[in-house]
């Protein structure tokens, strides 16, 4: 996954489907297939995120870069 926004969207859809599907399933209104789609998306998004070291490294480096910039601007704690 190239884009953190894609991951966010997948997680959002997964959580939305899983929660609403579970509620409807518990209410006896629909079968569990809708919730299963949501759970599947959440799991797939999680696996994709865990398997994407470059993505996390990029984020980490950007965070460190941000911290360094923070320091260089004179906001270092003494």
């Amino acid at each position, binding site marked *: 996954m190239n884009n953190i926004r894609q991951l966010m969207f997948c997680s959002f859809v997964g959580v939305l489907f899983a929660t609403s599907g579970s509620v409807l399933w518990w209410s006896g209104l629909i079968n569990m297939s809708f919730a299963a789609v949501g759970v599947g998306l959440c799991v*797939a998004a999680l696996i994709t995120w865990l398997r994407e070291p470059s993505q996390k490294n990029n984020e980490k480096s950007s965070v460190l870069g941000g911290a360094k910039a923070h320091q260089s601007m004179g906001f270092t704690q003494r």
Partner: protein
Amino acid sequence: MSIDAVVLFFIFGAVIRILKVDFQFPESLSRTLMLILLIAIGLKGGIALKEHATFELVIQGVAVIAIGVVIPLIAFPILRFFGGIDTTNSASIAAHYGSVSVGTFAVAIAIIDSLGIPYESYFALFVVLLEIPAIIVGIFLAQKRREKGELSTLIHEMFLNPGIVFMLGGLIIGAVSNDSINSIMPLFKGLFSGVLALFLLEMGIIAASRLKELKKNGLFIVAFSVFMPMVGALIGGAVGHFVLSMSTGGVALLAVLAASSSYIAVPAAMRVALPSANHSMSIAASLGVTFPFNVLVGIPIYILLAQVLSQSL
């Protein structure tokens, strides 16, 4: 757990493909099944249209066209912002989702009929109306400058593709014919479910084979392909109930139409209008994910949505 028999044929088709059974669906049979389905839906709509040709139908038609315009306008920014997909491909995919799938509609009709839920039987007219606006919106979103020769080909694809021609032909024949039409109805009405089952068997084979084309942006496209049908169904259901005051079955069918995505008319039009777009990705999303999702998961939820809306007011 009970599953509709025609839906099981779709799963059966997918299993055939997954198990790599050495079987090719005969192309001539495939075309024949599609032809019978299109004409059957058209005839049914035409017969109903003869009895319901009122001004109210014009208002409903305008509302249905508006749905076809709005859905691509929602899909496009999602594809651009969250998916990071380029403008041309986003416009092409958005156009697919604004249009309709006759196959999904046929499955919905079969299920709603089996449940005995009443609906406005002239819905085939709305299927025809919903095919076109999304293509125009898709081209508008892509902001492509076009040549005159291409434009004429595009207009031909939009208005004279086999899907629209045969359904519209059936609609007109059904609307203007006399009682002699009853003599041909055993083929188009009596065999409808059987033909639909064979059609879904083929769709299952094709859908399973399309999934491998979702390598790039795969997870996002899958999430988008199940999210957009729900958005479309909510819009269709809301318009059907609150704006058009349709029956329960009508609301469910409008939700199904808005939730479905095209895999016949729009791909053909987009190949002409946006030749640089990745057509295999949009067809894989539409046929490989959205169609099975709607058939296996979506339609019962859209019917439930319609029932909840009908009971609320």
